[in-house]
């Protein structure tokens, strides 16, 4: 029953994306017409490009900053560490609307007083990075706490330079966490609507484009778009799961 509830709307949407009639409820015949329209829609394609640029750049910056942050945090004393971690989690706990609004205020404020940083791709990247960092930190944190500090000392004792032992010991151990964090940040960034809506100015990401589309006219083009996205996500999840299963299988063999 629950699955019916969760999937029925999506399935209906997908079925009607093949509907040749523009009349919503009469299924007149099978067609790929709406997909053709979709893939020649400049506005949509442009917004996909924006989404990808923002997602790649901001999740990369977030991964680097987050990795440094979590390694650096380990050396702090207890109280500053706690304060910093709580501040880092603000974008996760705070309602998205408020994060979006506060960042918008920041950009408007800077723009009015210093005449720089008009809202656009750059502000989008800055704000996406901000809410992606907590996800990176969360995925690396368990790996860090599993680290055995003695191995790092052992590497130093055996004559490795600090930089070399950092690379070979610490970074190697937490690499899976870093990769998971990057993927997570990337997905969250692609999926985001609220924050892009407030900080993007006239630059549209895919979510914002969908919003303005669904406000104008109800067109089967949106149905086509959602089925394409649904299958992309579906394939992605299957790949991730297959990879995980393979890993379990491999380690099981050893």
């Amino acid at each position, binding site marked *: 029953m*629950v*699955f019916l*509830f*969760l999937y*029925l*709307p*999506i399935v*209906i*949407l997908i079925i*009607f994306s093949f509907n040749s009639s523009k009349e*919503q*409820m009469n299924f007149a015949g099978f067609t790929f017409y709406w997909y053709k329209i979709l893939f020649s829609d400049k506005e949509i394609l442009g917004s996909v490009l924006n989404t990808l640029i923002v997602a790649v750049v901001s999740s990369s910056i977030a991964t680097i*900053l*987050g990795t*440094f*942050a979590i*390694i*650096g*945090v*380990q050396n702090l004393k207890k109280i500053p560490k706690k304060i*910093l971690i709580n*501040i*880092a989690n*603000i*974008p996760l*706990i705070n*309602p*998205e*609307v*408020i*994060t979006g*609004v*506060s*960042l*918008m*205020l*920041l950009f408007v*404020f800077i723009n009015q007083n210093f005449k720089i940083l008009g809202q656009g791709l750059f502000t989008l990247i*800055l704000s996406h*990075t*901000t809410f992606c*960092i907590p996800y990176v930190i969360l995925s690396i944190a368990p790996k860090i706490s599993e680290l055995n500090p003695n191995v790092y000392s052992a590497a130093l004792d055996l004559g490795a330079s*600090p930089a070399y032992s950092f690379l070979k010991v610490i970074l190697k151990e937490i690499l899976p966490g870093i990769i998971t964090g990057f993927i997570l940040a990337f997905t969250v960034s692609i999926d985001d*609507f609220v924050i892009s*809506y*407030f900080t993007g100015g006239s630059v549209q990401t*895919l*979510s914002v484009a*969908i*919003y303005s589309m*669904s406000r104008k006219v*109800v067109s089967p083009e*949106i*149905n086509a*778009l*959602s089925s394409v*996205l*649904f299958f992309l996500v*579906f394939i992605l*999840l299957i790949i991730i799961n297959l990879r995980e299963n393979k890993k379990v299988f491999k380690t099981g063999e050893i």
Partner: protein
Amino acid sequence: MKKRIILTPYIVWCIVFIIVPMVLVLFFGLTDESGKFTTRNLCEVFLYPDVFLRSLWLGFKATAICLVVGYLSALIISRLNVKLQKILIILVMLPMWMNFLLKIYSLMFILQDNGFINGILSSFGFSKFNMMNTEGAVILGMVYNFLTYMILPIHSSLVEIDEKLLDAAKDLGANYFMTFVKVIFPLSIPGIVSGIAMVFIPSVSTFILSKMLGGRQNFLVGDIIDMHFLGGIYDPHIGSAISLVLMILLLICTGIINQLQNENKSKKGALVI
């Protein structure tokens, strides 16, 4: 020494993009256009008591529905074999990665006056009935969007329960109902609490969803904030004041939820002793 340096860029980032924006919200909320301190904005907020109450009330209803439906499904899933469980959990998670707006759009598609349900009804000769722009549609939208966040934590807390405890309860003569009341339910409370927090907060602060499914008469707090920033009335001062009040309200709510969790923990501690 070196470790301090690598932390610096992140601290700077936090200050510029987390702390300063929050301070700006506070500042705008408490000043007027000329930058003077005023409580006028906060007073204006209280012109919208119905919107705040409606947000809390709808969020509460949606959370309650999610809790009942989510708990039942998590319970059923947790009793299946491991392989099937894994597949079902992936199926539960999959819609989470669907675009939020597309999910709302699919609901609109079904509920509209000339939408899917009315299409079926009229083909059987029933008259159409109106579902869009109602409170029910907004609640349905919230449940549809946030149900996953309820199922997942409850499921993981149910899976963690030691099978031996259930066997012990059985050996001691408890039937399934008693086992559920005395063993399973108390042990799943942490999952319930985080599920409630994860559904309630986004439900109360949601926007667009209410605008698209609920129409004008079902505006929520999020929609009013949106209205003061990107909507018809541009007034960041009042918008910030509303955001402030919303933030404080939600902080109180999470405080209460955490309190419940702590009480539960200390009770459990007492039991162990």
